[in-house]
């Protein structure tokens, strides 16, 4: 089945107000730039966004934030974004902060059909407030729930028309699990090839998890902390 769509505008068809959408990426690394840009040009609002971070003031999910299209963020780290902090402090934006590994596993579990699981992270902290806890092997754990979304938007290096994806270096991060957890998963890729051209031995995300795929354009790939050896 050919899952290729023309561009980001076509890929986001069906994303409506108040939906839950996952966005892959860690910081600005491996974020679906094209899809975020296309969404920022729509009037869709009230989004619940699940993403490890929320971009920076003038890039990535920062675009949706500045347009007040996001109602709630579920993240693990939200520093380096002044507008985010302002909206959070003023109460305009609802924020749920989770330990990064818990967030990653909740997404993986959601995509894998596991409704809940126990992890030790956050026990005894405010993350554990209101959560069921239980002792295993002499250590306390918190019950955490699997997460799914109406749409998941991921970015890969290479993809084929069957939806198979390959990531580059640390740009994999949350993309692989999020692809599994979207009812509809949109993948944007730097290189899109016909099915059969990627070596099936080296696929990271099997095509079954991806419903729409397109070749992104004009990737800026902005670097947040350019650090060079002296």
């Amino acid at each position, binding site marked *: 089945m050919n899952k290729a769509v023309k561009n980001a505008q076509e890929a986001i068809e069906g994303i409506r107000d108040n939906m839950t959408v996952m966005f892959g990426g860690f910081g600005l690394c491996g974020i679906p730039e094209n899809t975020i840009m296309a969404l920022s040009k729509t009037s869709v609002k009230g989004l619940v966004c699940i993403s490890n971070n929320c971009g920076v003031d003038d890039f990535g999910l920062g675009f949706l934030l500045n347009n007040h299209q996001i109602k709630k963020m579920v993240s693990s780290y939200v520093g380096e974004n002044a507008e985010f902090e302002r909206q959070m402090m003023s109460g305009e934006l609802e924020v749920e902060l989770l*330990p*990064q590994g*818990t967030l990653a596993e909740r997404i993986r579990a959601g995509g894998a059909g596991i409704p809940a699981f126990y992890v030790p992270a956050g026990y005894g902290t405010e993350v554990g407030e209101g959560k069921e806890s239980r002792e295993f092997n002499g250590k306390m754990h918190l019950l955490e729930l699997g997460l799914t979304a109406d749409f998941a938007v991921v970015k890969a290096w290479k993809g084929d028309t069957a939806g198979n994806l390959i990531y580059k*270096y*640390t740009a994999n991060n949350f993309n692989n699990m999020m692809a599994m957890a979207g009812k509809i998963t949109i993948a944007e890729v730097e290189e899109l090839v016909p099915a059969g051209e990627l070596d099936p031995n080296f696929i990271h995300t099997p095509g079954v998890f991806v419903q729409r795929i397109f070749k992104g354009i004009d990737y800026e790939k902005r670097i947040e902390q*350019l650090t060079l*050896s002296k």
Partner: protein
Amino acid sequence: MALDKNQIARRIARELKDGNFVNLGIGIPTLVANFIPENIHVTLQSENGMLGMGPFPTMETVDADLINAGKQTITYLPGASFFDSATSFAMIRGGHIDITILGAFEVSEAGDIASWKVPRKLIKGMGGAMDLVASAKNIIVAMQHTNKEGQSKLLKECTLPLTGVNCVKRIVTDLAVLDVTEKGFRLLERAPGVTVEQIKAATEGTLIVEGEIPEIVL
């Protein structure tokens, strides 16, 4: 003389053993990579999704797709691997990472750590710190002994929101090396020229001093 940040990192590097898998947090812990003894091999993990982290790149080798958990551009070494964040935290949660070195705002004498939030002042999020402190086999905190106001960061009980409970094993500060024990902070070493009395005065939590306390050898 109190240790500077590089000296704290140099002292912590001596805790690493050949074959260790190590996760370094942001700040002083990142500097530890510069002081790993040449006769041992350790593998650095970055929780966004890599094992085998190398030094920072040059302008010619920089790649936006290759960053560490502090979002800094990085390189990789022979034998490196890349994976998704769920696999990365499976390594951490599953006990496959030997040592976690991270910074802190406060540590309590029971080994509780506060490092992610100052109510009404700073809310950036915990990132991977809660997962790391809940699961790593050995957790070492690198921090200043006192805060900017001169107040002790080694307390009977933490005052800030916690990152984890009863997890810190060892602390290396600008003044001392201490272990967290059932009875309190046990003083192991003192910075060159710093007296036990000065460390006592800078430690709000219970300080256990037994016998002669040697100076830190750098």
